[in-house]
């Protein structure tokens, strides 16, 4: 095992291969507070990449309802159970064991889902935690809670799937850090299915080899964001790149959100794979649950999120979500607009902080019709 630096754990950890950073790392930010679980992302992904024979139960992208939902069922709690109780130390240093460090006698600690685990992609939908007390009424704060968690492959910096593959059929692209399974090299040992703690590699029973989210790399190569990002009607997602070897740039929306303000957090960082999809935690969920899921910075992130309207630099970065299919490499917080630029510095999107209000007459003389103004 090599020693590698995992910045999400603030310490070194063991990994079967030496640390080798891609030129730039594909990164996503998902704002859970804006997700309505419409599954448009799920369908966009499914029809683009996983509509074939043998892929009937495969969803590279899915949206589940927490706390009960999970696709495949119990994907997270089973891994947590494998690792057992672990601890975060002072200064956000993870004191527990990652999936690469457990003494299970395996290279990567994991578990195998059953075919049936994939049968209910939306189990537990909209189910809240706990029961309503008799006589309870709504007084402004919900006692019981649920939230939607949109999930894709995390294109981890230290992928569990890659570490477990005995054939080295899984690789991480040097140009953008996308993790792929070589479809001609895989022999269907399903070690990756066992090892991935997010359960985002899937076994195809017809081709008998494993498949996973490809980060829409044909789009990425054209400078466009993936299907699940651009199809999101709630505009909860943004995709771009980060280079964690370099000092954070204030003009990169990702460095600003993830590394400078730390408002978006990795999902189960304690697994140790250094995932590259970052989540703004839901503001209304009990802290204990959130800390287990997103690590120790949850409270700060939520405070920041609640006060974002006062932080123009951060607000501007969030304004860019869902407003252009192009990949944003840098941005600027102008007086009234958030402006996004592409790799060569051309402006590709300009979003006003406040949408202008248009008052239209009730009677439209041109089309001879009445019109409703829907806010």
């Amino acid at each position, binding site marked *: 095992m090599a020693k590698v630096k995992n910045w999400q754990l603030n310490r070194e950890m063991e990994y079967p*291969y030496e640390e080798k950073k891609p030129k730039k790392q594909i990164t996503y930010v998902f704002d859970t507070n804006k997700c309505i679980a419409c599954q448009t992302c799920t369908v966009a992904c499914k029809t683009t990449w996983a*509509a*074939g024979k043998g892929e009937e139960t495969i969803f590279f992208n899915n949206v589940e309802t927490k706390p009960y939902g999970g696709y495949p069922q119990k994907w997270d709690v089973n891994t947590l159970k494998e690792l057992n109780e672990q601890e975060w130390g002072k200064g956000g240093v993870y004191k527990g064991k990652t999936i690469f460090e457990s003494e299970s006698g395996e*290279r990567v600690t994991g578990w195998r889902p059953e*075919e049936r685990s994939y049968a209910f992609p939306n189990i537990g939908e909209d189910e809240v935690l706990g029961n309503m007390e008799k006589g309870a009424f709504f007084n402004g704060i919900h006692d019981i809670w649920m939230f939607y968690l949109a999930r894709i492959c995390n294109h981890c910096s230290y992928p569990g799937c890659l570490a477990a593959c005995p*054939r080295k059929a899984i690789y991480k692209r040097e140009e953008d850090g996308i993790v792929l399974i070589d479809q*001609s090299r895989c022999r269907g040992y399903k070690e990756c299915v066992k090892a991935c703690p997010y359960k985002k590699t899937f076994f195809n029973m017809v081709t008998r080899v494993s498949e996973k989210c490809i980060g829409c790399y044909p789009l990425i190569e054209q400078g466009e964001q993936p299907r699940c990002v651009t199809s999101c009607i709630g505009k909860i997602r943004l995709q771009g790149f980060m280079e964690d070897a370099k000092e954070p740039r204030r003009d990169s929306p990702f460095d600003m959100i993830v590394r400078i303000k730390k408002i978006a957090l990795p999902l189960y960082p304690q697994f140790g794979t250094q995932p590259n999809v970052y989540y703004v935690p839901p503001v209304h969920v009990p802290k204990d649950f959130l800390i287990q899921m997103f690590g120790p910075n949850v409270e700060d992130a939520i405070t920041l999120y609640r006060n974002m309207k006062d932080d123009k630099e951060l607000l501007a970065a969030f304004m860019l979500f869902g407003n252009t299919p192009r990949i944003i490499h840098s941005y600027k917080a102008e007086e009234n607009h958030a402006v996004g630029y592409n790799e060569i510095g051309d402006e590709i999107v300009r979003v006003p902080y406040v949408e202008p209000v248009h008052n239209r007459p009730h009677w439209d003389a041109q089309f001879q019709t009445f019109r409703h103004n829907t806010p």
Partner: protein
Amino acid sequence: MKKQFMKRILLISFCISTMCLQNSFAQQIAAGEKIYKANCSACHSIGKGKIVGPDLINVTTRRPTQWLNKFIRSSQALVKSGDPVAVKLFNEHNKIPMPDQTLTDVQLKDILAYIKSKSAPIAPAKTTPKPTEANTSTKPSVKTNTNSPTAAKEKIDWVDAEFALKSYPAKQKINAKELNADFWSTIEALKLPVSPQQATYPTLKNPSVEQLTIKSVYLPKEVAFRIEWNDSSKNNEVDVVKFCDQFAVQFPISLNDIPSYMMGNKGGMVHIVHWKAIWQEDCEKGFQDVQVKYPNMWVDVYPGLESYLDRSKRIYAQDIGAELIVETHATGNMPGTYSNNPMSVIKRKEPVEEAVAEGFGTLATQETQQAKAWAEWKEGKWTLCIVVPVNTGNHYKASFTDRTKVAFALWDGGFQNIGGRKHFVPWIDLLLQK
């Protein structure tokens, strides 16, 4: 003058001491060889380059004995203690930890003596008695291939294995499907113990099969094996959490330099013939398609195949089989098949695949597939016949005259055996009988 005289005395005394030690040393080497072959040879060579671990030639002069003893017993303990040499070695060898060896002091000495003997320019190993004397009389003498145009072939380094399987000339064409053909009952059977694979990740922790029974016959261009092993469950289903029963036969491609029995090594290629119970099921009953396994499934549409739907004839998307998709070349949504992955073959002709390998994780399907196989599971027992093409002139396939090495691997699907999680039999001798 004085110097020369001293030299002579030294030389003489060295010779005398060597002669005195010769006998016990030879015994030590023989014992060491046995332990080495059972525990070390899968990952190490002596003078033939790196396999999984480093080449051990002259290791006894490179490192102190105490250090070697510590490393052999627990390399990881030494790595964790921060020993710079151990850490460097570990890093240089892809961080594959060498499994701990529970060996006595005497056994350690024997192994090191053996390695030393193989490293030395004048190898005392030549005086080593054969490890199992009972077997020697039945074994033919080493024959070099005189037809070979290359001189290199003259230097065959043949070491008798612990077990020898006799293959008898077949009197007729061998049909793999006739598992119980009369002639098999006349062939002598060999019982072989199998061990769990623990040299590399992923490992098989607990073995579920103890032994296999094997018989062999041959023709000029093929060798057939009839193998039986106990397996309480027949596992032939394709499923994310289920694994199938499998068996593999392995030959060295060249006898000049016998490769590691663990799937060969760099420069030491092996010819593998691999049978799988899922392929057996495909060949017996047709492809295990989604709608076959889940008859109540429903799917709205497979994009690109809409023209095959016919509501008037009640043909819906789930009725479109993988075989039809392959026939119509509409495999764009079947990435494995589209990429010509040999695992994703929909119309399989034989339940067996021929492959080559030169080390862990290097298995590659051969271009010419000639092997045949058939199997049957009955009352807790698999009976399998594999017919391996040999001496075909194809340089990715085994060729030999009257003897070679052969190794086996066995997967018990019911116990989640897959890939490296397997049982194995290291090289045994395969002796073609007249």
